[in-house]
């Protein structure tokens, strides 16, 4: 999967999770309901954490883009040594939060299912690490 597709996918997943939990929470707030999803603190924390991560991702992405536009390269300059233009760290946290809460919601805190969660989170960490490494070395991020 290309890095652009991965980043877009992660951002879409975070926005989808926020919108679903937000809609359910606001419905309970505005109507007289017998069951309020706001009583489930894990889902509300997931929404708040995803919102915070997306807001910081948006500001970092804007900052990186500004630095890219306003920067300059002279002849015979060496290429960027850091991968700071293509940070995806916060999306990783958001995705890991979503997957963790999803598995806990469906399977509970059972230790037998913990191996599934650990494997999935490790896989995402490895993929994120590989993409960061590729960007650092200067290859095509797509």
């Amino acid at each position, binding site marked *: 999967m290309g890095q652009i*597709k991965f980043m877009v996918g992660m951002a879409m997943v975070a926005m989808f999770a926020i919108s*679903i*939990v937000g809609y*359910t929470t606001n*419905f309970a707030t505005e109507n007289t309901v*017998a*069951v309020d999803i706001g009583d*489930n603190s894990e889902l509300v924390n997931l929404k708040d954490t995803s919102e915070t991560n997306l807001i910081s991702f948006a500001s970092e992405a804007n900052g990186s883009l500004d630095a890219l536009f306003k920067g300059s390269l002279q002849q015979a300059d060496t290429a960027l040594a850091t991968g700071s233009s293509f940070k995806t760290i916060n999306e990783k946290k958001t995705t890991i939060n979503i997957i963790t809460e999803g598995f806990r919601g*469906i399977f509970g805190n059972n230790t037998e299912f913990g191996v599934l969660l650990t494997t999935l989170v490790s896989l995402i960490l490895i993929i994120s690490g590989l993409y960061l490494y590729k960007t650092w070395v200067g290859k095509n991020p797509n």
Partner: protein
Amino acid sequence: MPFAPPNYTMPNLSSGMDDAIIGTVTAVPIFIPMFLLFVFGVVTIGGSISQKRRTGLVDLPMWATMGAMTTLMISIAMTTFEGMMNLYTLSTVVTITIFCGFWLFMDRGRNEI
């Protein structure tokens, strides 16, 4: 031969259909989760088969997400009635909807959403 009384409590329709349904849900707690599973299955499986017949290809992540969102809308509407929905079922429906969305966006190519 006299009619033997049933071994279960008959639904009481004197106060309306709402109470009859809630009485059924109270007596058989698995009724609402099974009904929601039925809704999810109809939308997902029915839509997939229909698409397969029309186009030859099945976009299962999209149909799973549509089924999950339909189920979520019905679950949210049910929360307005006392005794019909519980927090565990609603949380499970929300979690499954988020997972189906995760599957949908991971399945898309670069030029799609």
